[in-house]
């Protein structure tokens, strides 16, 4: 079974600063592979390894996709090759636009199963995988917590709020996987060295049919107003302090 895992390069949320006007400052943020996408890459690689197929990676984004370290980081996790669509506008494309570009790129790749993460590491809309499947017109399932390969299909477990569905999904198909489906491998030095030698195919936006218009516009992205907290800290657990804390807790309801 040939698999494709999609991933997104995102700013590390830990490095995001807030400007005085409450807008976000991403200048200092290191770019990383989305943490949920690492799970998708692992699952795609594992499935391909288990079935004697090949695993590819696919990403759409801006210039940062050219970063050779990030390319090696992605390819050191079990996949054989990388496809990417690179254009600066893809840095700010929304879930529908990104999904359209990925779907168009998938049209040029031989695959049986596309694996997406639960959501992107930055916007976490949890939509791209489902949109890609719908746009391709192939079977699509989200919340997938286990995948087993069968002839021409996969049997997946889908973990919903109150039940687990076992579903047979005809291939080709797209799935979004939950974070507990696997524990992503830790790349070893030999994997990292090998990653630098794997093929990378880069497409321009034109080569995948351009970027569709989106009817949804992002008006603002602002840090929330901080709620003023009282910051009363008792430095030890004396009876007196406990008593005061109990009184304060009771006063809060």
């Amino acid at each position, binding site marked *: 079974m040939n698999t494709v895992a999609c991933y997104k390069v995102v700013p590390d949320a830990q490095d995001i600063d807030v400007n005085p006007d409450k807008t976000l400052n991403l200048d200092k943020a290191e770019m990383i592979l989305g943490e949920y996408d690492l799970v998708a890459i692992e699952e795609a690689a594992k499935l391909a390894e288990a079935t004697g197929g090949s695993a590819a990676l696919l990403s759409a984004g801006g210039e940062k996709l050219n970063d050779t*370290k990030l390319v*090696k980081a992605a390819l050191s996790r079990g996949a054989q090759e990388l496809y990417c669509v690179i254009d600066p506008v893809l840095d700010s494309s929304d879930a529908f636009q990104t999904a359209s570009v990925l779907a168009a790129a998938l049209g040029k790749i031989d695959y049986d199963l596309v694996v997406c993460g639960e959501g992107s590491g930055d916007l976490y809309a949890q939509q791209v995988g489902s949109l890609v499947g719908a746009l391709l017109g192939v079977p699509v399932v989200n919340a997938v917590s286990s995948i087993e390969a069968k002839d021409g299909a996969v049997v997946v477990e889908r973990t919903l709020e109150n039940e687990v569905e076992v579903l047979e999904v005809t291939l080709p198909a797209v799935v979004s996987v939950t974070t507990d489906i696997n524990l992503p491998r*830790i790349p070893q*030095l030999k994997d990292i060295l090998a990653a*630098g030698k794997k093929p990378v195919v880069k497409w321009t936006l034109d080569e995948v049919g351009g970027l569709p218009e989106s009817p949804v516009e992002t008006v603002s992205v602002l840090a929330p107003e901080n709620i003023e907290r009282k910051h009363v800290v008792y430095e030890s657990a004396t009876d007196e302090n406990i008593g005061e804390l109990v009184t304060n807790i009771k006063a809060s309801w």
Partner: protein
Amino acid sequence: MDFKKTEEQELLLESLKTVMERGDFENYFKECDKNHEYPQKAIDALVEAGFSTLGIPEEFGGTPTDILTQIMVAEEAHALGYPSLVWINFATEVDDILTFGNEEQQKAVLDYALQGIKPFTLGFTEPQAGSDSAAMATTATKRDGKVYINGNKTFNTSADRAPFMLCVCRSGINENPYKDFSMYLFPMDRPGITIEKLDKIGNNMCGTYEVHLNDVECEETDIVGVEGKGFYQLMKNFEVERLTICAANVGMARCAYDEAVKYAGVREQFGKTIGSFQLIQEKIVDMKIKIENMQNMLYKAAWKKMNGESIQIDSSLVKRYTGQAAFEVIDDAMQIMGGIGYTHDCRISRLWRDQRVYRIMAGTEEIMVHTAGRALIKEAQ
């Protein structure tokens, strides 16, 4: 000059960080330190992530890795709180056996190294022969086609776990001790070997022992390298060993520094953070200068080694400097932490106990003056 790490080095260090984060070993190390236990869980995690393969040739199942990268990894692990003397790359052991060992010895030693097991304890220091290595009195005596080892070795790290000893012995073939030493590699479970644990003040996770060798029977083929050349073989060994020890020094200093500086930024006294006091700032600045110096010296020495230049002098300079500077950085870190730094709850107290021995082991800082001092004068003539 390029001070930037390669992408491969950066990614490898990120993998190391992931191992340490997933393991969340801080409390575990605290327990192991308290109970004098070997941190097997952390070793297993590192081995699973392939770190024990670094520096071992491909034909033995390893991943060829330059010494600079190995040093960066060891340094980073210690900077992330990994305890000293239990690191899982045995550059010295691997280097020794690849240079001087026979095929069988190589396979045995490298197999263990690949599993993260320290392959041998080095039988060098003796109760009466520390810095004065010529005073070593352990003998290797040939009798009826066998070799019998007799003597006492001390400060043998991991003698309880290492499957072998690489033992330096007098061969009785030359009056000049330096031309009389030979090295033998034998399993630690041979009859005639007893070990006795030393009760030290730090490095509790790594046992250190006295080893008594009483008529330990070896084959003549257990010799490593050439009879009578043992001392010179070892000297080569010490250059690499010193660099890896220095990596631990830099890492431990960084670990203590990171914690202390963070603390200085949040700990409040007299209504402001202690980091706003210049006496604390001075400590932090001097600590940082020492860390920068240590790193630069160490990386440069490793770079020279990789490029085939002699590091005879460098290895002594960097050993002496990093041992002292790391000690000072950790001591200052403890001072910044105040009373908390002196408790077992704060890992700086462990670093303070553990690092101290690096000024003594593998060549005291005084002996480093002796080795580098003579060479520097000679070089200037």
